[in-house]
């Protein structure tokens, strides 16, 4: 067992509102974990705590042996190993697709332009956008932009990929192309934590499904355990509405 992410008793407050109420969670290398749960349950906040886009109120998050709240930890360095894909894509609108992908490898990893370009070509092929390399994001569909965002994150060759509702902002017809790319990643043994409402994807791809509600992990297990052999009433109530 080789844990990449270890979360211990994680609490997160926004003012008086306690969003996460003590989460314990370990993500092993090559594992695909899907987090499901109702809106406002804290699953996105949990994901954002994993690379400290949200500060941690108490508890600890350890990535690759680096404790995020430790003042000695260089956050930017740890984040290089953690790819993140956002609901709203957040591609850089002022540069074309290839430059979006090359930016961090050249500026952060200090790769040569040739190396970064080569990396970008490989990734563009992987996400099926080779012909869009010189196009600006405003000319692309949501699904294409999200695939650019995935390629951009992969260009850093992260140890783990975090997906924050990657298909929630997409037109129904482009959801599939993004899920395909994610499925291919999972098959290549990428370690992934996916917050999603796509239960079909969770069932098919996840090694483990975690159901979060009101800031606590209510239930977790294999997709079969959680979806077909549900233990808790809250999970049952949620699944009955979304399945």
């Amino acid at each position, binding site marked *: 067992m080789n844990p990449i992410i270890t979360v211990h008793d994680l609490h997160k407050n926004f003012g008086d509102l306690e969003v996460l109420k003590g989460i314990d969670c370990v993500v092993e290398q090559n594992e695909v974990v899907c987090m499901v749960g109702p809106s406002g349950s804290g699953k996105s906040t949990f994901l954002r705590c994993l690379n400290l886009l949200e500060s941690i109120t108490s508890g600890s998050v350890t990535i690759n042996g680096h404790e995020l709240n430790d003042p000695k930890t260089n956050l930017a*360095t740890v*984040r290089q190993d953690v790819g993140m894909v956002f609901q709203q894509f957040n*591609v850089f609108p002022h540069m074309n697709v290839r430059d979006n992908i090359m930016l961090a490898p050249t*500026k952060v990893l200090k790769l040569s332009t040739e190396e970064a370009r080569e990396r970008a070509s490989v990734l563009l092929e992987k996400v099926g956008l080779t012909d869009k390399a010189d196009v600006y994001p405003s000319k692309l569909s949501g699904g294409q932009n999200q695939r650019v965002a995935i390629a951009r994150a992969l260009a850093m060759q992260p140890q783990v990929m975090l997906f924050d509702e990657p298909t929630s902002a997409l037109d129904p017809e482009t959801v599939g192309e993004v899920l395909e790319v994610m499925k291919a990643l999972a098959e290549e043994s990428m370690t992934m934590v996916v917050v999603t409402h796509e239960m079909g994807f969770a069932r098919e791809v996840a090694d483990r499904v975690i159901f979060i509600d009101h800031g606590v992990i209510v239930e977790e297990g294999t997709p079969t355990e959680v979806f077909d052999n549900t233990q808790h009433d809250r999970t049952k109530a949620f699944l009955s509405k979304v399945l």
Partner: protein
Amino acid sequence: MFDDFGWENLPPLLDGMLLTAFLVVSSGILGTILGFVLGLTRTGPNRPGRILSAVYIGFIRGQPVLIILFFVYFVLPLMFPAASVSRGVTAIAGLSIYAAAYIAEIVRGSLLAVPVGQSEAAEALGMNYRQKLRYVVLPQALRIAVPPGIGFLVALVKATSLTSVIGYVELTRAARITSNINQEPIATYLIVAALYFVVCFPISLLGRWYERRLA
């Protein structure tokens, strides 16, 4: 009426116009540099820096330009005799101090107008604050800043007329001198109005060209 204007009076007015343009360019550049630094500090990670620039911006924006000019020209030399400077330096310094506060607010607003997701994406890619600013946030913020920035430059042209009060012979001061000589204020001030327009119009054109290029 223009017959009595006396066209030998035109060159001093043109000189005044050039000095007005010179004031706009010099205090525009200095004010932009200072305003840029203030705007970045105002939104930056350093708390004392944020407070200092907020105080500067708030205080200067609460002052009439005329008071800033009087302060630099009359008050500072009384407090520190070594700070006695010429009218030209006073005019440039006063207008730069004034411009910096407004440009800082334009820079700040533009930085805040870039969606926070852009910042988060840059951070998630392992960029540090400087890299994030330089490659992701600033290029987008500057596009947003240009139209209001152009608008402010036009306002700065008109603010230069206030330096006539400390005796700097820019266009407004030149106009008063000329109309005292030829006793033809109507013609003189009509010509001066045209000359101000000549200074402002290219700046407006620049702004329009920029906005069309974006669209």
